Each structure stands twice: as C-alpha cells, then as structure tokens.
C-alpha cells in the first residue's frame, strides 16, 4: 500500500504523481474510451461507500455486448467492488451504499422496481474461491434452474444440466459421477462447476471475480479457454490480478486505482501503449 500511495518513488524523472489529488478532485476524467456504441451494461458516475469510506469514486464505464472486459489494478483499488455493483451483490453488505446509475439493456438496475433476484438471474457471478454448494454435482447445476422454474420436468432439467456442464467443458470429466458431491472435485473442476452453475440459469452477463486466483496454471488455462468460448453467447466482465490473463482473454481492459477508473481501452492498446502513468507503472510491474 505504501508504494501505491507514493508511485513517484520509482521514477524521479517523471512528474510526481499523487493519486490523492485525484480523489480530492472528484471530476477526474477517465483516459481512453470508457464508452462503447452498443453497451450491454452502462455505469455512470458510480460512487460506492463502505460506511464513511469511499471505495469507488465517480466511475463511468460501459460493458459492451459479447465482449470480455478485464478489470485490473492493485489490491484495494475497487475493481471487485465495482464488479459487485453490476449485480447488486454489494446489497448484502449492510454498510455498503451505492450512488450513480447502472443499467442493463437500458434498465436502471438500482431502480425501485428492479428485483435483485431477477437481476442476479440475468447477471450471473463466478467467485474468486470456487464455492460449489455442499451438494451433488447435478444439484449444483440444477439449483438455479429449479428455483427459477426453468425446467418443467426431469428430462428438461437433465438437458439443462448436461448442456451447462458441456459449455463449462466439465461434462466429460464428471458424467459418471453426477451424484457425487461437488466439493469433492479438484479446484479447477470446482471452478468450472461454478461456471456451469452460473450459465445454467441462462444469464446475459457473467461477472467473474478473479476466477483463477485459487487455481494452478493448467486449470487456469482451461478456464481461460472457456471464457473465450463463452464470449460468443455471453457478456463477461472479469476482475483479475494477472495481467497476462487480462491480455489473453479480454478485448477491453479497465485500469482501476484507489477507487478511480484511470484508463480504459482496447486491451492491446492498454498493454502496449498505456496513456496514463499509473497504468504504465502497474503493467510494467512497478507496483501491484
């Protein structure tokens, strides 16, 4: 954290930069292209507070249709918090307060008539640590469709479960042990099970909060391949600590720093020609 607050410590030749200045001037303009022509989700002037502490300051960002957008930044920069505002997962934290406008297909998801249950069915989520339910593999996938009434009989449910597991490229590994507990799978399999669980309710957007941070490189590679395949049908927002991963899976990248969205752009551009000094420092590994 110390280094984050004093990024100038590394390069004496450049203009001293203090991010706290930006926090005070809340009208900081994000560099790059935060907006797209055909957004799936839009966020405008989003501020998030945990009690008195401001976690997100004035973030405006679009998530494009069928794109993978990566959110990167040092620990505590608010990228996960921002991700969680997109399906109102922050609602479960009592002291958390969100202001600003966030829309899904033009509908205000923080509107009075918005139902969080419906929203979370449309905007699914995969968490940092694989968190399958302590139930069978089948039940893990079938749970979402069941509570939403998506299957009318056993055959339909079987089809949904199989299809979801196939899309998560897990079916072949577990087809003979669908009644075994999901918690008995390996870490990478568990995370793919969680992805299958998320896509079983046919969401439009999938939020992934560091989905590979608890996995080994081989499992990570499988998940990354999977993300690439899923892009055809879903819009994906992924928070990651790994810049290589962001570079590999995403089309656009957003760089967060101390609760502010510093820079957004095409992934290639952000990683090869970062326009903001903080972004450059981060992706060149000067802090993080």
């Amino acid at each position, binding site marked *: 954290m110390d280094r984050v607050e004093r990024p100038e410590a590394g390069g004496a030749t450049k203009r001293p930069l203090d991010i706290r200045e930006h926090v005070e001037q809340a009208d900081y303009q994000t560099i790059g292209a935060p907006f797209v022509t055909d957004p799936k989700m839009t966020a405008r002037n989003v501020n998030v507070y945990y009690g008195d502490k401001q976690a997100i300051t004035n973030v405006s960002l679009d998530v494009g249709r069928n794109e993978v957008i990566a959110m990167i930044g040092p620990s505590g920069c608010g990228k996960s918090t921002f991700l969680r505002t997109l*399906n109102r*997962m922050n609602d*479960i934290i*009592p002291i958390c307060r969100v202001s600003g406008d966030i829309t899904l297909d033009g509908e205000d998801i923080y509107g009075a008539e918005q139902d969080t*249950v*419906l*929203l*979370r*069915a449309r905007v*699914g*989520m*995969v*968490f940092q*640590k694989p*968190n*399958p*339910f*302590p139930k069978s593999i089948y039940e893990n996938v079938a*749970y*979402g469709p069941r*509570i*939403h009434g998506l299957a009318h009989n056993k055959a339909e449910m079987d089809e949904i479960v199989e299809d979801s597991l196939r899309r998560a490229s897990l079916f072949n590994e577990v087809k003979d042990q669908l009644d075994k507990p999901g918690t008995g799978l390996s870490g990478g399999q568990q995370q793919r099970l*969680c992805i299958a*669980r*998320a896509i*079983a*309710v046919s969401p439009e957007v999938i939020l992934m909060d560091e989905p590979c941070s608890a996995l080994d490189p081989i499992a990570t590679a499988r998940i990354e391949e999977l993300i690439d395949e899923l892009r055809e049908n879903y819009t994906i927002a992924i928070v990651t600590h790994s810049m290589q991963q962001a570079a590999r899976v995403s089309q656009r990248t957003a760089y967060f720093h101390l609760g502010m969205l510093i820079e957004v752009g095409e992934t290639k551009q952000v990683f090869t020609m970062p326009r903001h000094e903080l972004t450059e420092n981060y992706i060149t590994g000067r802090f993080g």
Partner: protein
Amino acid sequence: MNNTNEQRSSRASLAIQASLKKRYARERRFQWYGRVAVIIGFTFLFVLLFDIISKGTPAFTQQYIRVTVNLDPAELGLEPGASREQMFAADYLSPIRSSLRAMFPDASSRKDKQSLYRLVSAGAEYNVRDQVLADPGLIGQTSEIWLRAHSEAGSYLKGQVGADTPEADRRVNDLQIAWLDRLRAEGRTESRFNTTFFTQGDSREPEMAGIKVALYGSFFTLLVTFVIAFPIGVAAAIYLEEFAPRNRITDLIEININNLAAVPSIVFGLLGLAVFINFFGLPRSAPLVGGIVLSLITLPTIIITSRAAIQAVSPSIRQAALGVGASKLQTVVHHVLPVAMPGILTGAIIGMAQALGETAPLLMIGMVAFIMDAPAGVSDAATVLPVQIFLWADSPERGFTEKTSAAIMVLMGFLIVMNALAIYLRRHFEQK
C-alpha cells in the same frame, strides 16, 4: 570483528544451553499440573459414579417371600359365587396375616405380630388379589404364593443390613432376622428383577415405588419443551442472524438473550407460577406448564448455539446462492440451514439435556406432587425424573436411598443417550 562475533555467538549458545534445562523443567512441571488436574477430575467422577451405581444397583432387584396362604372364603369375606367386584373388594390382608402367623407361631405378642406382618410388603394383598382375580379357583385353596418382601426385610435379604449391626441401628429387628433366616434356609425367598420400578408410580412403600410417572412426565415435559423451544429458537436465530438489521434494538435483544441464559432457573419457575398458572389458569403440576417453563430456559441456549452455527456457515455459500438468483429465504433454507443443522441440533439437544435435569423451576409449578398414576397427556398431573429423585432423596427409608440412586442412573442413562444422539446427528449431517 569475526572473533568477537564468534565469541558472542558461543556466549549466547552457552546462555541458551543454561536456560534450556529450566525451560524443559517448566514444561514438564506444566504437563504434570495438567495430568494431576485430569486425574483429580476423573477421580471425582469415578467416586460419584461408583457411589451412585453401587447404591442404585440393588434397587433393580426385588426380594420375594413364598408364603403358604390359605384363601379361606370366610376370612376373605366372600360367599360362594361372588362377583368380580366382590372379589376385588375382598379382604386379602387377613388370610396373609393368618398364614404368616401359622408359619411362625412363635410371634405371640402384639408387637411381635406387627414385626411379622412387616416381613411382606403392604402391597402384598394387591399381589394376592391380582392372582385371585386371574384365577378365581384359588379361593378356598391353600396355595404357595410369592409375596413382595417389605423393603426393610428386602434390604436384609440383599445383605445391605447385617445381623452384626446393633439392633437399635437397623430397622429389621432380631426376631425378623431370625424369621428371614429361616425362610431363606427353607428356600422360601427369591430375588427377581424389579419390574415394579419401571411399571409403577410413586408410593409410600419403597418396594412399591417406581419411576413410571416420572418417566412419562419427563417425556411429556421434554416433548412440550422441544415443540416450543426448537422452532421458536431456530426461527429467532435465523431472523436475528440473517434478516434483522444491525441496530441498537437488535443489539439490545442480543444482550438480553445472552443475559437470559444466565438467569437462575428458579426465576423461570416463579414466572411460570405467576403467569401460566395464576394468570392463564393452566393446570398445576402438568407437563404442559413444565414444558413451557423449561422451553423458556432452553430458548436462549438454542438461540445462541443456532446463531453460532449459522454464523459459522461460510459466506461463500450464501454468495453462491445469491449469485444464481436465490432469494434470501431460499438461500437460508436451501443452503445455510442444511450446513448449520448439525450445530443447531447439537445445541438443541444440549438444551434438552439441560431441561431434562432441571428441578428447581418445576418445584415452583407444583410438579413436586405425589402422583401414583402415569399421566395420559400433557395436561395431567405428573412429576419428572429429577424431581422424583429429589422427593426420594428426602425420604428417610433405606429403600428409597437405593431408589434415589437407581433413578439417578436412569436419568444419567437418558442423558448419555441424548448426548450420543447429538454426536450421531452431528456426524450424520457432517458426512453429507
């Protein structure tokens, strides 16, 4: 420089070596303190168990004396062709007494006769009556009938009281001992398993007293307690843990629940007396009121343990459920509760065990009454095991001392069963 460093190192290692001995000694001492503490604890437990079991075991056997009874219809006060009602009401005491006199003609004085009659239980006449009712052909016959021995005579036959005790210190006199010795020599005594202990209610005669009423009472009371305390406790825990806002009011509620767990149980008894019996007019001495009062006592335990169990459920499971669009209630019912269930059940059973052993509040609501007939429902008068133990412990007769210990054994048996159930349920749910 190097030299001094080396010197310093060697000095340090010497110092460490010197201190090592002390440190290890301290550790050994500490281990010994622990061992001694464990040994003392186990000794107390062992002495307690040994005392109870050695005192209580004889209560599970009952001595019988075979008496040659001449069921003379004239003595019974029965005419030929008497109805069942008449047989039921007949005087069976006189034939027993005259039979005893016939067996031991040496009892001549009034006092000696009293001693003689006290060889058999005061309930012996019912014993004979039941046999006659089962087989009316016995009337007019002389038959050998096994009669329940009086508890004092029984304790001599069991060897609890010996002839070497001075006569003034025992309740069987020398005459009775002589008679009992003769009976034993003639093979007229027998020791049987004491079924009465489980099939009868309380009685003034130790050999007739049983724990049936207390067992039924405890069962009904615990049933009421469980039916009230478990759903309310779990519902309160779920609400407080998952739904209630965190503010001053819920903080206050939480503090009060914790305080409630520490309130002396007799206070709940006073509350039960004042509110449930005097104000609501619920029946006195009934398992219904006892169960309500005990549920108040166990509620804090259940709420606190259930909250802890719910709290211990990993938030990632909640997030996973919410993340696929489960409502809050679905999240709790489908995912949090199944995981928290072992903890909740353990808490509930601990609460129930606490309720099973509770005495003081039940004294306040009149469950201390002398009751001979087992309750048929929750609103009939009954007593419970610990109160029965309390009642018997208060009785001076030697026969009740062993009954007290025997009832404690039964109570402990139930506690062991309940704790075993708690362990079983925890394992069972954890495996899932």
